[in-house]
């Protein structure tokens, strides 16, 4: 008998696949179940946000940012308005600042709940997905009452926010905070201690701080390696310096640490919401801004801590009412760069575990 001929299998994971979280396509070469080579193909959701922005006034750009990272639209809103306000040196009312912080942190919590649900779904557990979404739904309802949309809020404006909180809204959020805290005890009990879950995520998809920095990673992906870097603390913007919260860092930089960072960061977000609710003053929610917003000529970069990392906005202005060039530094796109290196030598099952923990949103990868 001669030697059995074997060959590597070329597989297209996606663009339509249950666990690529959208339309990511990963071309993998597998030898049996082991991945020899993986090549992510992006661009299926490209809408040309940056190019479109060149023909839009600054306020008109805001709804386009909603559609970038569609799980955390408020954060994207904050990025663009914060960048323009910094460039124009605008003062915005106190109440508007607090409203922004409350919605941004709630949105961060909401986005991480989606991570929790979908990640466990990727690992084969159905139930946590529904539990996480039931709680997420409560926040979605809050946003719906605030701005009439469940996903694409278009809530912030340059100089403030569009709507003040409706009657009773702040009280309801205040009641929600302790409820949500209790839910985390349940999540930890249901998921974190599960032996099979630990087997699937511990020591998987590990990388060190140096690699993460070389690949310009940010957010939880960077912090999970033990590197303390959070723009809310390191380069405070808005009014983050007034709140007392911890930056969550991991130790090993594996999937388990990234999961734990997500879980703990949600609690920190609740802390910030709680403090903001205590401190929020009365007053207007929209400052005095010029009728037509013109950013003075020049180049500006400002970044905020997005849900998935450093969300930067780079504006090149010629002093007109539209940007000459607008560039978003989208953390999902940057974080995805490391994927081929992480996947080499892993099994098919680990592909899903690793991709899920890197936590990308395809709307943001492709913009």
């Amino acid at each position, binding site marked *: 008998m001669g030697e059995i001929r074997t060959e590597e299998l070329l597989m297209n994971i996606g663009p339509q696949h249950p666990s690529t979280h959208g339309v990511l396509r990963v071309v993998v070469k597998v030898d049996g179940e082991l991945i020899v080579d993986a090549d992510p193909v992006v661009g299926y959701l490209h809408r040309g946000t940056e190019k479109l922005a060149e023909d839009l006034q600054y306020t008109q750009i805001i709804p386009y940012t909603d559609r970038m990272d569609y799980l955390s639209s408020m954060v994207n809103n904050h990025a663009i308005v914060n960048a323009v306000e910094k460039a124009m040196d605008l003062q915005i009312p106190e109440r508007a600042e607090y409203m922004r912080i409350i919605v941004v942190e709630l949105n961060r919590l909401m986005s991480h709940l989606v991570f929790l649900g979908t990640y466990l779904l990727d690992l084969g557990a159905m139930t946590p997905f529904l539990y996480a979404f039931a709680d997420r739904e409560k926040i979605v309802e809050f946003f719906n009452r605030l701005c009439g949309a469940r996903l694409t809020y278009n809530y912030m404006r340059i100089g403030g926010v569009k709507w003040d909180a409706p009657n009773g809204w702040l009280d309801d959020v205040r009641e929600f905070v302790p409820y949500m805290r209790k839910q985390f005890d349940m999540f930890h009990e249901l998921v974190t201690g599960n032996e099979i879950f630990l087997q699937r995520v511990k020591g998987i998809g590990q990388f060190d701080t140096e690699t993460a920095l070389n690949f310009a990673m940010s957010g939880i992906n960077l912090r999970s390696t033990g590197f303390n870097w959070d723009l809310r603390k390191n380069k405070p913007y808005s009014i983050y310096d007034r709140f007392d919260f911890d930056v969550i860092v991991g130790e090993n930089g594996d999937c388990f640490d990234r999961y734990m960072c997500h879980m703990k960061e949600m609690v920190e977000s609740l802390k910030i919401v709680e403090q903001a609710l205590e401190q929020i003053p009365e007053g207007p929610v929209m400052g005095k801004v010029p009728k037509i917003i013109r950013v003075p000529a020049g180049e500006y970069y400002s970044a905020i801590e997005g849900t998935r990392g450093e969300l930067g906005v780079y504006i090149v202005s010629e002093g007109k009412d539209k940007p000459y060039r607008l560039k978003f530094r989208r953390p999902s796109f940057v974080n995805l760069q490391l994927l081929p290196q992480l996947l080499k030598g892993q099994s098919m*099952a680990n592909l899903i575990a690793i991709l899920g923990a890197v936590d990308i949103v395809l709307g943001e990868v492709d913009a």
Partner: protein
Amino acid sequence: MADFFSWVDKPLDGMAFLNMVIGAVIVLAFILGVVTYTIYFERKVIGWMQWRIGPNRVGPLGLLQSIADVLKLLIKEDIVPAKADRNIFLIAPILAFFPSFMVLAVIPFSATHIFTAASNVGVLYYIALSAMTIIGVVLGGWASNNKYSLIGGMRSAAQMISYEVPLAMSMLGVILLAGSLNLVKIVEAQQAFPYVWYVVPQILGFIIFIISATAELNRTPFDLPEAESELVAGYFTEYSGFRFAFYMLAEYVYVFAMSALGTTMYFGGWSGPFLPGWLWFAIKVSCFIFFFFWVRATMPRIRTDQLLTFAWKVLIPLSVVNLVATAVLKYLLK
């Protein structure tokens, strides 16, 4: 009536054959009904565990949901992929589905077991036939000419072969205690002195049995062959219509059959006080089925390499220990 179905002990003639066929058809129809409501039960149970209601639209309380689903599958187009190996693709689901019904022939549903055979090699017959399903699964995965199906089929082969071993070995303990491969005799042995179900002396064997059974049934946390998040639908990715229904049917019939086997081997089958035997049997089987569904709603999925390591390095040594301990105990207590 009892006379009509007493073909078991008679020589085979025309009338006995006719009776046999009628008996088989009745069991088949009965099992189909049971399976239909097993699926309904699963969806309801998992729904409640996930803060949902579950099916409640078709018929009162959604009781006709499964029937509607089956009808839909039957009238759907039977698609054969252009590049599939046509003949094998067509017969693979049937190969997977036949043994699942055949194993039920030896399960004693009640003390009178009018429709089922009290075969002297019942346990062996069950194990041998249930292993045949794997052929249908592998062929289906291979013939689909789809990479996901192929990987699903291969995983399935590796998994089923690995877990057949501890499953059979764990049952050897019971066989040693009862001194018979006949499932009826095993139940009767549990009714006799010392009046204890084998789950008590065979607790280790039972744990191995239930883990291996879950793996053998391809259910969470061992549902790798059809791991949705990795392989879309595993070996039946390319199947649609009634061929898909055959695979699903085989899966659920096995859930019932495995529960019935577990009940018979470890929980005294139909035996129990006050209630009639068939009701005891139904209650015990329902508990088993509920357990499988409960685990499905609770657990994430294990990885292929971990799954195989677990079988060969943990379950098989443990089942050998169990077997030897049982044999020694039996010898000492004789």
